[in-house]
């Protein structure tokens, strides 16, 4: 793409697009703006600045939704599911791509992993809560994390699989002549080469887990084990129609993600774009 020097001035076309995009994301500003108002003020003038800023809403929302507890729960679950998941998927993807004999077995296994991409996650839901309680992982964040690792396996293995296929094999062959085992080659040579796709995968996985609503809804029924999306969901039941208070809770729940997005957006965008270009 050519750099041209005139582009520092906004064109009419660009201003139109800026206005359209701003209008599109008005709902997000609306939440922030109205989280600091009283109920009456919100209904009369949802678009004006608050007359008197009510921080009180935030204090109340923070304690009502058990913010610290829900945050910790979500963080724990996301961390397990992402850290363990990324490690298992990258090992598996490497084994599947580089296996030297038993090709037919390994392509059957690859197919088995990719099967998840077509199956709606709902289908695994029915037996899960009784299954988890039978193996004593009921109401446990580790248990739900394992469920996430299982349901995301196809996605994770798929993403790394296509990357490993593009890595030149010469380096690995050299290491093999030096007497390295496949596990050593994976650990010392392949994993460091995969830093970029592994980070992208970790970012995309943590988003999926952090925001997920369906699995925690069914598998974590206790108040103590609620994740952020769950405590937001149940928050409204308790304070029906007190919108400013609910909005304060929403802002609190969005906040950690916005920070994450701010630092990781290049990874997120490139992760999605790569998939598009490869098709």
């Amino acid at each position, binding site marked *: 793409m050519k750099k041209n020097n005139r582009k520092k001035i906004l064109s009419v076309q660009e201003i139109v697009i800026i206005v359209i995009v701003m209008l599109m994301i008005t709902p997000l500003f*609306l939440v922030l703006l109205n989280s600091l108002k009283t109920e009456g003020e919100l209904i009369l003038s949802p678009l004006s600045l608050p007359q008197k800023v009510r921080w009180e809403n935030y204090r109340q929302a923070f304690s009502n939704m058990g913010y610290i507890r829900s945050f910790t729960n979500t963080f724990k679950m996301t961390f397990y599911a992402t850290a363990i998941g990324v490690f298992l998927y990258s090992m598996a993807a490497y084994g599947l791509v*580089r*296996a030297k004999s038993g090709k037919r077995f390994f392509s059957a296994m690859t197919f088995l992993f990719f099967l998840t991409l077509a199956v709606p996650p709902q289908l695994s839901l029915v037996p899960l809560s009784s299954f988890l309680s039978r193996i004593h992982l009921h109401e446990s964040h580790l248990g739900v994390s394992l469920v996430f690792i299982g349901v995301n396996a196809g996605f994770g293995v798929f993403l790394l699989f296509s990357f490993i296929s593009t890595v030149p094999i010469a380096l690995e062959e050299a290491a093999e002549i030096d007497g390295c085992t*496949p596990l050593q080659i994976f650990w010392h040579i392949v994993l460091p080469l995969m830093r970029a796709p592994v980070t992208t995968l970790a970012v995309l996985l943590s988003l999926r887990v*952090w925001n997920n609503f369906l699995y925690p809804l069914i598998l974590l029924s206790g108040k103590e084990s609620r994740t952020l999306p769950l405590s937001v*969901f149940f928050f409204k039941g308790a304070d029906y129609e007190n919108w400013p208070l609910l909005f304060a809770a929403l802002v609190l729940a969005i906040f950690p993600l916005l920070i994450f997005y701010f630092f990781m957006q290049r990874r997120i965008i490139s992760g999605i774009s790569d998939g598009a270009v490869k098709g």
Partner: protein
Amino acid sequence: MNNITTLSKLTIKRDFLPYFWLIVPALLVYLTFFLYPVMSSFLYSFTNFNGFNLNYDFRGLKNYKVLFGDPVFRQSITHTFVFGILVVVFQNLIALFFAIALNKNFVSKNLLRTLLFMPVMISPVIVGYIWQFIYSTNGLLNYLLSNMFNRSFHVNYLSDGRTALIAVVITHVWIWIGYSATIYLANLQNISSELIENADLEGCSSWNRFRYIIWPLLAPATTVSVSLSVGGSLRVFDIIYVMTGGGPGYATETIATFMVKAMQKNYFGYAASSAVVLLILVLLATFIINRYLRGREIDL
């Protein structure tokens, strides 16, 4: 490559087992926590399993018979398809518009893409509540309409059976526009600018340039974005469950919300059979759409 017929103990030990052990941990978790539950769902779909008691009875195809005799379920199939078609069409059209608009040397290009993508980042529960406010009796939409037309509007768009489904479609599309736009934008940036400049020199109108040059070259992105939106919209759950709970009445009930509600009533066998129906529909739709879209790519 080693020939499978000459597999000796040595090659198994050296060329097979080390790689086998590498996939075992992921395979174990995947089999235990995904494939096993999925398979049991198929089994349970023929039983009266209540979620806890493992002494269930087989009822043959009875669950499926009851399911297709249930007017609510039949409605939810219709809603799922209406939802899916509207979402796929509008999500992709609007995303395409933004992708083309942003594929210029704008100063604000990256900022705009970041903003447009923001809704994807936010949990559907949160987005659902935000839009519930917009559609509520004293909400933003009525406020804007009242100011625009100088008379008061007091409709709750989510509790009116005529508007509820459209309202949730709009919210779902609003979330995913940024995602699809990112996919189209990545593809647009791969199209050589020479090709487009040549077309300009030949005196191509901008519509013809889009129709005969850009649109065919966007086939790979279209395949990805359309398939993702088909899968995502047919299995929609969160947004609807949060915004309407399937109501008013059953006006926004989809297969996925129907299924979760059946589980909450402890009709697990019944829930399993509706999940199986969902699987079959998703597979069929994805297969047909994919065949068509891949065919388009080859025609190039």
